[in-house]
């Protein structure tokens, strides 16, 4: 099954209440699969092709505001259009899931794979001091698994969650075990779990208002401090990463998503030549595994941040390393996906590994 198809099936299976999206390559199979599966006839999940990405994200804002598990998906330029809505959701503390199957940019760019939206995903993209929780799947299995995880975290912290995938993971077909069926939450369950949601007031409960607007500076400062406190908690509790052969590593590659898969192949080739290289794969890009990279930087001779872009995550790696060891970046742009051999050459050049230059 393709990564995109896995997202669609996982959404139906994890009790998603609604999907609102607009087609764009390379993620159109998500909407396509949902339309073919007709979940409105089985679980009651709504699937709607909106008139634009701006409409989609605002439908998510509305659905999430009512405590529903709702999602959208798009690719880079489409997600760029959604940034205003995402900032509103962050401000109003509305949960929801945004899937970005990245393609090359800037602008309309190309339909080929890229990881050029790392900054957009982890630095905001909309206005104000906010973060979204970003999960980076590197396999079709994780595309399936992260849908429910993203919803869980999004509702737990009332923060928009993003699955930052790319054209490779979206289009590749692999073996996948789909998650078990979980029913959609009932109205009573939503009322219990989301006392803040605007669900239609009955009885005497206080009025719930979903808004990101607050004109009194003191109140707005208080709200911002509350958000920052929440981000601190998420940083402390939700960092996720995978380590491969780091125990004895002399060099470390940091890579996420499809790049991490390419890096794994490069690492097994390098190890067969006696070069001890390990991989740290951030699974959450925000919160970033800063502390673990800090620790590893004490142990290795150099770190290479391998990304399919001009060098974005490398900034977070450098902030973690704080000069303790050399940090380099390797990547390609324009929709070109580097091969394992090209990564090996880059590593050999950056850290003058002579054994590889022969």
């Amino acid at each position, binding site marked *: 099954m393709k990564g995109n198809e896995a997202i669609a099936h996982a959404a139906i299976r994890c009790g998603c209440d609604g999907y609102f999206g607009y087609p764009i390559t390379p993620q159109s199979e998500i909407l396509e699969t949902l339309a073919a599966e007709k979940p409105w006839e089985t679980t009651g999940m709504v699937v709607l092709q909106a008139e634009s990405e701006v409409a989609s994200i605002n439908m998510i804002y509305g659905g999430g505001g009512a405590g529903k598990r709702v999602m959208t998906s798009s690719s880079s330029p489409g997600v760029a259009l959604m940034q205003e809505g995402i900032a509103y959701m962050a401000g109003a503390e509305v949960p929801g899931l945004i899937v970005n199957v990245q393609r090359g940019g800037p602008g309309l760019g190309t*339909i080929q794979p890229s990881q050029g939206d790392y900054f957009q995903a982890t630095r905001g993209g909309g206005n104000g001091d906010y973060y979204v929780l970003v999960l980076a799947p590197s396999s079709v299995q994780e595309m399936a698994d992260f849908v429910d995880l993203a919803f869980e975290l999004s509702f737990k912290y009332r923060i928009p969650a993003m699955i930052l995938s790319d054209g490779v993971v979206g*289009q590749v077909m*692999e073996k996948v075990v789909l998650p078990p069926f979980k029913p959609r939450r009932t109205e009573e369950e939503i009322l219990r779990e989301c006392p803040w949601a605007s669900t239609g007031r009955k009885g005497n409960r206080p009025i719930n208002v979903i808004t990101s607007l607050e004109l009194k500076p003191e109140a707005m400062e208080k709200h911002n401090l509350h958000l920052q406190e929440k981000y601190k908690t998420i940083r402390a509790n939700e960092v996720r990463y995978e380590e491969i052969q780091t125990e004895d590593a002399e060099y470390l590659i940091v890579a996420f998503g499809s790049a991490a*898969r390419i890096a794994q192949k490069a690492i097994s080739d390098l190890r067969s030549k006696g070069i001890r290289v390990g991989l740290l794969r951030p699974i959450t890009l925000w919160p970033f595994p800063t502390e673990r990279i800090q620790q590893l930087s004490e142990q290795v001779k150099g770190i290479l941040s391998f990304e399919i872009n001009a060098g974005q995550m490398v900034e977070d790696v450098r902030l973690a390393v704080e000069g303790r060891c050399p940090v380099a970046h390797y990547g390609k742009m324009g929709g070109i996906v580097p*091969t*394992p051999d090209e990564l090996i050459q880059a590593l050999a050049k950056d850290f003058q590994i002579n054994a590889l230059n022969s």
Partner: protein
Amino acid sequence: MTEEIIISGFGGQGVLSMGKILAYSALMEGKEVSWMPAYGPEQRGGTANVTVIVSDERISSPIVSTYDTAIILNQPSLEKFEGSIKPGGTLIYDDYGISVPPTRKDINIYQISAMDAAAEMGNTKGFNMIILGGLLKVRPIVTLENVIKGLHKTLPERHHHLIPANEEALRKGMDIICIAQEAK
């Protein structure tokens, strides 16, 4: 066992479907598989290729630098991928689409006149299954039985009556593939 395969030709030849059927068949045997298409605004006559990896172990990268086996169905694909075959690896090509034959000496080269055979059988759509049959003869990655199972999985039910014709095409490919050069 890990077999890294590139299948490349014109859009419309069934390159992506052939890869998909191969991947599903390997899945039936309990193997790890990945299928990575070069996607784009594809159309009949444009170029199309797909990387299929079949392995007993977990597959790291679905994108690789070199291949164990290349199935080449037109001239531009030969020019693009001949140099990426591992020494001692396998190249299978249909002479119908090739005007300048391969020149590598360190690989096994097989030739299969699938286009002609498909026309003779009156089943031009069976072209890709003839090629797949040829592949399985020289690289028995999966059994014919599991390919038939793979076809059941990938073809929509309304096309299941075509499976016997596909099986015939697979067997034809196994018959007609011939070695053009052994690796030196």
